[in-house]
Every structure is written in structure tokens, then in C-alpha cells.
């Protein structure tokens, strides 16, 4: 039963860790746009290669805007 004295604080620490990382992610704008990425991931990679090599400047797939 004494293990509770270790496990309970551990659980709390774990929870705290997740809460902090969530707050940081929110501040970085991870959750500003919840719809577009859901659509973007539907597009297969094969569509990413442009047929004309001319001035192939594909926008970098980056995270949401800060």
C-alpha cells in the first residue's frame, strides 16, 4: 500500500507535464485553425510533385502561423 506515496505524486507530475505542454502548444498557435490541417492530410503525397519543373516553388508544409 505504501507504493501509493510514490505513485500519487508521480501521477500528479505526469498530469502537470501534459498540462504545461498543452499550454505551450496553445500559445504557439497549434489550435488556431482546427479545420484546414484535417483537409490537408487527406491529400496524398503523390500530388505533391509538380509536373512542370519550371519554377517549382512549393510552399513549405509548415505549422500554423504565429
Amino acid at each position: 500500500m505504501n507504493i501509493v506515496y510514490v505513485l500519487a505524486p508521480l501521477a500528479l507530475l505526469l498530469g502537470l507535464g501534459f498540462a504545461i505542454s498543452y499550454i505551450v502548444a496553445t500559445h504557439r498557435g497549434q489550435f488556431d485553425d482546427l479545420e484546414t490541417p484535417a483537409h490537408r492530410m487527406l491529400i496524398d503525397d503523390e500530388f505533391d510533385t509538380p509536373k512542370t519543373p519550371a519554377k517549382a516553388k512549393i510552399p513549405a508544409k509548415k505549422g500554423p502561423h504565429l
Partner: protein
Amino acid sequence: VGLGLAAVVQLRWDMEKAMSLTTGFSGDTASMLKVCIHCGTSFRAEASSGERFCCHGCEAVHQLLTTAGLDDYYRLREISPPVCALPAKVSSESFAFCDDPEVIRRYSNNDREMDFFVEGLNCSACIWLLERLPLLCGDVESVEVNFAKSTVRVKRVSGGSFARAAQALNRIGYTPHLVDESGTQELLRKRERRRELIRIGVAAACTGNIMIFSVSLYGGADSFIGQWFAWLTAVLAAPVLTYGAWPFYRSAYQALRARTLNLDVPIVAALIAGVVMSAWSLLARTEGAVYFDSLSMLVFLLLSSRAWLKNLQQTHLDASRLEDSLLLGTVERLSPDGRTREKISRLSLQVDDFVAIDSDTLIPADGIIAHGHGLVQMSALTGESAPVDVREGDVVFAGTQNVEGEWVLHVKKKVSDSRLARLLRDAETSSREKPALIRFADQVGRWFVGVVLLLALFIVARFALTDPSEGFSRALALVIVTCPCVFGMAIPLSLSLAVKAAARRGLLIKNGDVIERLAAIRRVYFDKTGTVTEAALSCVGFQICTGDLSEFGVLRALEKDQDHPVAIALLRAIESLDLPEMKVSNVRVEDGRLLGECRGHEYSVRAHGLSEAETLRMSYGFYREDEMLARFDLGDRVREDATDALRALRARGLETVLLSGDRRSVVEAVGQKLGFARISGDIVAEATPEDKRELLRADGARAAMIGDGANDASALAAASVGIAVRGSMEASLRAADVYLLKNDLRALDDLFSITHATRRAIVRNLLISVSFNVCAGALALTGHMHPLWAAVLMPLSSLTVLISSLITGRKLETGK
């Protein structure tokens, strides 16, 4: 061709008959329905013509995408439904104003990024295509799409032009509009949303961890560990009950200070009562229950359901965020000596400036013609579809269109003071006054809250002397279990889901209130020009007097490069004929006549005066020297979908009225074709915008108006529900409540069926919620419900109502 023929060929055709006859002439097969490969709209074309597009816009966009290697767009669209099917709308605006320093200062983000609202962003393939804009336009470094808001953030390469980027967006069929996304208001909104998310996250984390400890408490932890765990739940609940529940405290405080009640008052009462009770049993080490877990859960559930609802409502188009279409645009200002022209934004136009107006441009401000003359389409203000001759000294108004001629405008009023701007402003103010179901729901909610609080006080008072803790526990159960969430959440949810379902079917609804107002509509007013008839002048009949078909080749060659509305109508009338290519030289316009030479003869097109049937607008003759070869009657053609839409609405028992600013004879002719009865006042003609507005105001909540977003702005706003079918979206949604994306009136019937289904769902939810609250409230009062059970049942009842709304919403979206 002998003169004798003239007497023989005297036929008068209806347009449809002419089509079928002429196809017989060229020995061709009949026309058939085809599907446009760009937008998927079906259109009518000859089977053998090889036509693959419904319009030039679609053809141009398709060609552009194929040459840029972006034709994967079509493949992608096939595999990622829903397919967006709208004909490409390419605006003629040059977007040069986007490079105006004043505009860049106001709308760009660090000078590099600009946000545009784009029309036509509907599916994943659109996102893919828009984010590959740099392949089409060298000025763009990257594009980021926000699907929910329908906006794109364009980042330019250093030294790149925003105007060219906007042009590129326009060229691929997404009409861009500047939006002020980088402004302070948007920034505040974003911050607010992030704060909300963090609040929910903290509440969720704490509540989750509280559960670990309370489960063992319920499981019967021994007294030492039990005591510890109870304290731990209190510590973990502290941030939820202070920081997390802060919005409830604030809102309840504000309501009490204003001496009213809102839904947050009983929530706060329950929270405080629960905290006091739990703290007491914790400190006094009594055997009483500790409620920190259920209180945190309550806060978390309320916070997240409210945020979800708010998000659902905010993703819909917020018309006020679209900037004024009048202010944004490019004009060519003349220097005082009249020698040089400079392109400036309309925003910077001043009184007494001189502006060069070319043919086919929008007049930017109210003013007087300094010199030159032209032909102006006044339909934006009067509804009259035929253009009017204007010359030196005439007054012209902003928002009207110069279709022909070049002249100089002497600006007399700033753009924001023009007659059209005033009408639009008026429209905006009246669109803000809203009779709302939500206001009613709030009121009922307040009564509900008041009654619950009184009952709780009563039960506490009743047990005050005999068993205070029993009275307290019953009151707490009552306050927690009775939830007016049907008023606070289910009704707004049903309304927003209806808005979403309508958007899927091409109906943009400004907000949920419109659904409620639509239910009260008994009479529907239709505008004529552009609503029940084609917007452009079209040929409704022609008569061949003499000559053979080959001479129509001359006519086509003459009209080919003219952009006059008459030329466009004539070309459309003869486009299906199999005509020989002819060479015409010396094409010129003299005193309203179009002249050209071919095979030694002089051919001309000129007005023939009003035709005998007075309902037609005007008649044009095609002449060789002075001999008339053919006569064309131009007028309004009734739209096919209008007939169907009117039939459907009348079948629903709605009254229909035709309302127009056009001449009485014209309006009556159109009205009779569409089955409007003249005697019972179903046709109103020669109405000014002000007349229309008064008429609709007088009808109050019963009347809906369907019209052109620009022409009828004030009437649309005055109507209980204004429905815009044409015109630019931003101008339309300023005044109207509904905008038809597809320009197909048949969608109106969908609008009414969505309204009725939503209304039924709301009534059902009210019944569920009232019966639940009465039963649960009675149980709590009689002491048959423990406060803990109340905390479990409350979210369950809310869920039932929310799920019931969601099911209806889903049904509406998939179309039953």
C-alpha cells in the same frame, strides 16, 4: 439575293423556335446536356460542337491549370468529396489597389503578408490548389489557407506585388476580397480564443486527476489516506473553481449588478454552495460528502460545451469583416492639367478630383461629367436594365456602370458620402435590429432561474430548524439538476446547424436568427431584373426580312469586338448558327450606329425604334446600305429556374409578388409569363429604391425580398428576410440575410424546408427539456435525489438535447 425574297421570308420567331429551326438549317444534331469539366455544372450545347465548358471563365481556368501542371486538381477533387461545383467567376477588377501604399499600411501584416477572403473555397482540392499559387505567380512566396474562415494569407516575395497575387487568385476562379485579419480586433479575438482553450485544458487536467483520488475515496480508502486524498481533491479543484470558473463569476456578477438573472447565476450559486458544504465537511472531519470532483466536472463540461458552440457559430461568415466594396478598387486620377493619369485606390479619392472613366468600368463616386459622353447602366440604383445616355453636365452616381464611351468625372462627393454608400449604410443599420428567438429564450431562461432559486431558498428555509444539512443537500441537488441548457445552448445549436446545412446546399445564411424569421414569412417579393429574368439584355425574337444566312457572317464579324450589351445580346442570338467567316473592314461607331464594309457594300447595325409590342425594350436593325436585312427585338428573358422556384413557393402557400423599378409595361409582360396576377396587386412596377423599402417595412415580419444584392440593398435590408441572388457577395451580405451561391432560384425551396425542420427540432428539444426538469426537480425537492446523482444527471440531460439537435442537423446536411 433578289428583292422578291423580302416578301417571302417574314417570319417571327420565338427564341426557342429560332434555335431549333436554325439547327435544322445547318443539318446538325439537336442540342444535349453536357457536364462542364471544370465546375461540373450541366449545360446545354450541341452534341457535335465539342464544347467542354459551361462558360469562358471555366475554360480559361482549366487551361491555366493544365499548362501550369496543376491538373492534378481535378483528380484530387474526384477522390475527396464533397465536390465543389461552381462555375468559375472571374472578376474584371485589376486589383491594382492592393499595391496602394495606404492599403498596404492598413491591411498588410509586416508589409509582407496580406489576408484575403476568397469566394469558392469549398473542398480539400481547393486548399491544395490555393497553396500552390506560387507555381502560378512569381510574386508569391507562400499561401496559407484557413478553411473554416475561407481566408488565405498570401506572403509575397520581397519586392513582389500583392496586386499580381490577387490577380492570380482571381484568374483561377477564387474572387479575393481584402479582409482586415491582421488588425487589432482580429488579434483580440485570437487571444481570447487561446485563453479559452487554456482554461478548458487546465480544467480538464485538474478534473481528470481529481478522479484518480475520488475513485479511491468512493472505493473506501482507509481513514488516513482518505483524509489525504480528500485534501488533494480540494487542492486540485482550487484552480478549476477559481481560474476555470472565472467567466461564470464575472457574468453572474454583471447580471446581478444589472439587477437581472442569467444562466450563470444558478451555476455560481451551486458552485458556492458546493464549495461551502465540502469545505465544511473537510474541516470539521464530518462524514459528509466532498463534492470537489463533481463541481470541477461541472465547470469543465460547461466551459467546453460553450466553447464548442461559440466556435461553431463563429466559423460562419461574418459579413462585417468584409471590407467595403466601394472603398476598395482602383481609379485613374487625372492630373489638374489633364495630361497624366495615375492609378490610385478609391480610398484616396478627394472632392474635386478628376477621374478618367473608360468603357466598362464602375463609376467610383458621385459627380458630374466634365467632358465626353457615354452610356451608363444605372441598374444599381434604379433597377432599370437598359443603359442611359449621359453627356457633359449630367450627374452620375457611384456604383453605376459605364458600359460605353470614355469621359471624365468631376468628383463632387467622397466615396463614403455617395448616394449608394448611404443606401448601404442604411441597409447595415436595419440589418442589425433583430427580432430574436434567442432573446425570447434568454427571457424564459431568466424566469426559469428565478423560480429555481426561489424553490431552493424555500427548501432551505423549511428544513432550517429541523435538519439544516438535509435542506441544504436538497437545495443543492435541485440547483445542480435543473438546467436551462435548452435555452442557453440547444436552441442556438439547432440554429447554427441549420446555417451549416444550408451552406452545404449553396445558401449562405448570415446568422441563425434568419432561420427563425423565415418561419414567419407569408409573402415573398421578387425583384425582376437579374432575379426572375436574365441580368443582361437578351434577344427575345428576330425577324429576317431579306438576305441569306451568309450575311449574318458579316453581322458576326461586325459585332465580334464590341463590348456593348446590345452586341453581346446579338452575338448570343446568332452564335448557334453555322455562319461563314467574313472579313469586314473599316469597322467604326458613328452616332450610335455600328458601321463596316464588306464585298463593296456598307453594312450597319442601328436602333430601329421601339417595336410594336411595347413590352420589348428596343429593336435593332441590321442593314446593307439602306435596306434592312433583319430585325432583332431585345428584352428580358425569363430565367428557367424562376418558373420552378415560383411554383414550389406557391405550393407551400406563400404569396408571391413581383416588385420592380422598371417600366410598367415591361414588368407586366414578365409578370404575366411567370403567373403573377395583375389584378390582385401581385405586380408592382416603377418603384424607386425608397418605395420598395417602404413597401417592405409596411409588411413587417411577413415579407421576404429576393433580389440583386447591389440593386436592391435597401429593400433587402428592410425586408424581414432579404435574399440576394446576384451581385458581389460582400455587398449582398451587408444588406441581405441570405446569399445564393449558385444563382439558382430553386434553392429557395430548400431554404424553406430547412427552416421548418429546424423549427420542429427546437420544439422537440423544448419538450424534452421541460419534462426532464420538472421530473428531476420534483425528485430533488422531495429528497429522492442525492446531489451527486444530480451532478451526473445534469450533463446527461444536456447531452440528450444536444444529440437531438445534432441528429436533425445531420439529417438536414445529408438531405434526409
